[in-house]
């Protein structure tokens, strides 16, 4: 994979969530994603950033255009040093929530994006990578 410019937004408060998704919207628009995919990417960023804010307090969202075998895509990385996730299969189920939410965020991001990888260690933190290919 060849990396182009990469942008990061630290997530410390609710306002940072808006900042991260605005950046995502801007980059996806510049890359030529259509309206629906722009909305998907922006929403996915919103979910990941809000999870950081809610469950880990602080973290970072990185947004970068990537190229893989001539295919262009947008890669979103969510990183935090929060409590981590014990049972990944459980949190990926629709409706599972520990905060009285809809429990739709993580399974939603998986459906919104083309590639979804989650890597979490208890008491160490959580790393999530999600990619959307440009069609």
């Amino acid at each position, binding site marked *: 994979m060849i990396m182009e410019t990469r942008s990061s937004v630290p997530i410390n408060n*609710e*306002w940072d969530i*808006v900042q991260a*998704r605005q950046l995502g*919207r801007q980059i996806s628009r510049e890359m030529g994603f259509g*309206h*629906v995919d*722009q*909305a*998907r990417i*922006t*929403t996915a960023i*919103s*979910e990941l950033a*809000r999870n950081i804010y809610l469950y880990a307090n602080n973290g970072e969202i990185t947004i970068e255009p990537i190229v893989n075998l001539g295919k262009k895509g947008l890669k979103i990385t969510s990183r935090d040093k929060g409590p981590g996730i014990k049972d990944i299969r459980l949190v990926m189920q*629709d409706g599972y929530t520990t905060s009285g*939410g*809809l429990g*739709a*965020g993580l*399974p*939603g991001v998986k*459906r*919104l994006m083309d590639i979804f990888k989650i890597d979490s260690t208890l008491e160490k933190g959580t790393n999530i990578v999600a990619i959307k290919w440009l069609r």
Partner: protein
Amino acid sequence: MPKVVIKYIKDKRKEINEAWMRKMAEELPEFPNYRAPNQNLSNANDNFVDVIYTYLLNIENTDDVRDFIKKIMKLEVPINYLSIGLQVFRRVVMEVIKRSEKDPENLLELYEHTDRVVEPIFNQLIKDTTETWERTISIQKSELLELSAPLIPILDRISVMPLVGTIDTERAKLIMENLLQGVIDHHAEVVLIDITGVPVVDTMVAHHIIQASEAVRLVGSKCILVGIRPEIAQTIVNLGIELDQFPTKSSLQRGIEEALKITERKVITITEGNGKQ
């Protein structure tokens, strides 16, 4: 002692003022307003140097200063005018001292004292400016928040809440409050929530809207969600959020038609002339 410096500044006020005007015109030629000398002291708030004197002499009536700061707030005066104005003031004072002081031995000390006189003015001015600024911003913020979730009664028993912009936790709370209060105040049987202007509908926003409509249902009214843009409809489906228990209409117009139906009314066209419906 800074007293000596203060005495200079007081005694040579006219000289300092004139020199300051001249220098400022050189430094900031783009702001000719501030060049015009002020003979009239009642007009003092137009003049930065007078403001400095107000600070310097601890004049009780600080209205001049407040007016001046208001101008900065309104951006009639650029903020860098403050720092440049004070720097020029210090330089002018130093020049006056240099010209008047006979003993060059004292000069270095007097320069230092000039700094000590000007610094607190600068700090105070910055403090007052930022405080006014912060107050203005906080007032604007609460005003904006009040406007951010208005419930508008449009027809008998029908109200609309148009939402524009990002929805955060604070605003979500306000949406709920205004919705319930409005339903009670306006006796609305149907409320239309228009999300045309909401840029992102994520799980949090969806959750708040679902909760709000649930609450409206509990007080005996009905919520209809309108203005779901096609791309938002897509992402809601992707998120796996079920809106089927939730009445939705594509546009505000369709929503109003539905609301009329619910309240057992409809819009008819009256043809002019023959009075036929």
